């Protein structure tokens, strides 16, 4: 019981990081309707900017995290303004954005190595210590990750469902031309979406920095897994991202303990089976990439 509780707790912590990563990816995929491979680099940048602000500039952790998120947002918005805006409206945009984001990935990856160095880093724990509930060792740091994950996810849902820009995003995700006819500033919403998406990746990176440690290749390693997870929940459904992230976190945590390295085979196999029967994902409407 205590063991399973521990596994559940660890899985919940890592699952909520996945939820943040998946939500950003879902926003970019559904609204901008592109596959954004450079997404992983923003995760790395968020983590390392937090590290820079906390360890080098000696800011308090939460202020550093906020600055790192702002940097991620600005970088994402600049990406849209400088690059994606040129190809977002052309015909073969799916393949064109694939190439452009690959190029961006190379630039940001190498730039990150130049600026931050090639060695893994870590931030000292903000809330050291742990307490025991029903035999489960609850590390306060992981509890912080869970609480922040829940707060950010709730804020995102409020933003997506209630604010004007969120409504614009949903309208554009549904039918961009008609949304444009109804007076929604498509250009601006695209920019904000990319910024919010990359900011979510950045906050995920910043949140895991004190608990799990950071290394320069972490974004590149995780981006395809995130993409597969978003596809299972539905490429355009935030609720799907929530479910996908939480479930994958649990599967990885329990599976790693009980069946070892085979867990990835099982995970991707199950994802394949789900996608075979529900190509649009469990909760989504599916993407339109312009081919049938």
């Amino acid at each position, binding site marked *: 019981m205590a063991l399973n509780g521990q596994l559940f707790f660890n899985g919940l912590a890592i699952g909520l990081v996945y939820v943040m990563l998946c939500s950003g990816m879902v926003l970019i995929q559904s609204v901008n309707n592109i596959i954004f491979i450079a997404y992983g680099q923003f995760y790395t940048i968020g983590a390392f900017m937090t590290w820079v602000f906390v360890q080098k500039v000696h800011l308090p952790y939460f202020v550093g995290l906020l600055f790192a998120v702002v940097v991620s947002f600005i970088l994402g918005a600049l990406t849209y303004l400088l690059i994606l805006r040129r190809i977002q409206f052309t*015909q073969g945009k799916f393949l064109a954005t694939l*190439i452009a984001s690959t190029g*961006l990935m*190379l*630039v*940001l990856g190498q730039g990150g190595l130049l600026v931050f160095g090639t060695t893994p880093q870590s931030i000292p724990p903000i809330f050291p210590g742990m307490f025991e509930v029903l035999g489960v060792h609850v590390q306060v740091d992981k509890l912080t990750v869970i609480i922040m994950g829940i707060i950010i996810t709730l804020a995102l849902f409020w933003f997506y469902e209630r604010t004007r820009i969120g409504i614009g995003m949903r309208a554009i995700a549904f039918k961009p031309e008609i949304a444009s006819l109804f007076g929604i500033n498509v250009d601006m919403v695209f920019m904000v979406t990319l910024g919010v998406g990359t900011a979510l990746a950045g906050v995920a990176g910043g949140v895991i920095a004190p608990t799990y440690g950071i290394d320069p290749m972490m974004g590149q390693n995780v981006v*395809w897994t995130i993409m597969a997870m978003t596809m299972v929940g539905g490429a355009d459904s935030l609720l799907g991202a929530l479910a996908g992230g939480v479930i994958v976190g649990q599967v990885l945590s329990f599976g790693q303990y009980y069946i070892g390295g085979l867990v990835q085979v099982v995970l991707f196999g199950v994802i*394949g089976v789900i*996608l075979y029967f529900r190509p649009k994902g469990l909760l989504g409407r599916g993407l339109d*990439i312009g081919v049938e």
Partner: protein
Amino acid sequence: MLPPLAKKHSKLIAFIVTVLGLGVIPTFNQSPFYLDLIIMMIVYAVMSMTFLILLRTGLISLGLAVFWGIGAYASTMLVMKLGLSFWIGLPAGALASGLFAFLIGPLLIKNAGITFLLLNAVLGLLFVVVIGNISYLGGYTGINNIPAPDPINLPLLPTIEFVSKIPFYYLALFLLVVVAVLITAFNACWVGRAWTAIGLKPRLAETVGISVYRYRLLSFVFASAIGGLMGSFYAHYQGFIQPSTFNMWITNYFQLFAILGGVEHVIAGPLVGAAIMRFFPELIRYSPEVGNIITGTLLILLIIFLPRGVLSLFDKNRQFLEGVTFIRTWAKSLFKSGDKVDTS
């Protein structure tokens, strides 16, 4: 201007000139470094051609590396465990890949479009972890000491021993020619016309009596078999393989080579794209720490200013100078707002 016959066969002449040009390189430059660069360029270019074969029928694949890897592993296993010759392993690798594609294709192609893309991506993710967990296939560490091809005796030539890079170079060139001839032959006959029709409008093609499913399966099997062929060559050329070589990023690179060159040119496009992406980092190798930054910037600029590939500069209905003015209009639009820019 060119005589009419030369104009008609300009692509063929350009291809022959390229192959001959590549063929004479070892006579005056035998540095293993450059030969390795060109051999890998050819392997990557052929892999990008398989992407274009699939794209022609409207299938965007994210699992090209899987079939590359299956060819490599099948051939390696046949040679190392059963003691067969490389010259049996090479076609056997292609056969294994093709067979796997034939078996799994019906599942993938049933729903084309985004489903095909996603299932292929899952296949690509699965391949690395499955191979990594099978200790018989070497696990994540892979297989070392794969033997080089056996010496062959050709009439009128001395025995060819695969000890230096030069025989491998000519073998790669030979495979390139074979694949190019195969692709051209397929595209020239009724199969190619059906593929083009499916790529343009699948439903219309279905209406005029083309079995979309069967022709897509054919193109999938064909592309996978070519991937297996190159995988077998790659395994015996490198001498070692490991599952992480066949990951998602390499598939991404294959797509990149093809799109960079121009997706309308099935054979020339991947060659040009792979050449740019292989040789450009070498030109700037004196500054390795910023190499990727320059390459990435080049990619972004190329896709913004030449969205239809480098070869669209030399299109028949657009002279070279017109292409330059086209770039200038694009450059002007950079400073305006993000209006819809007409690319046709």
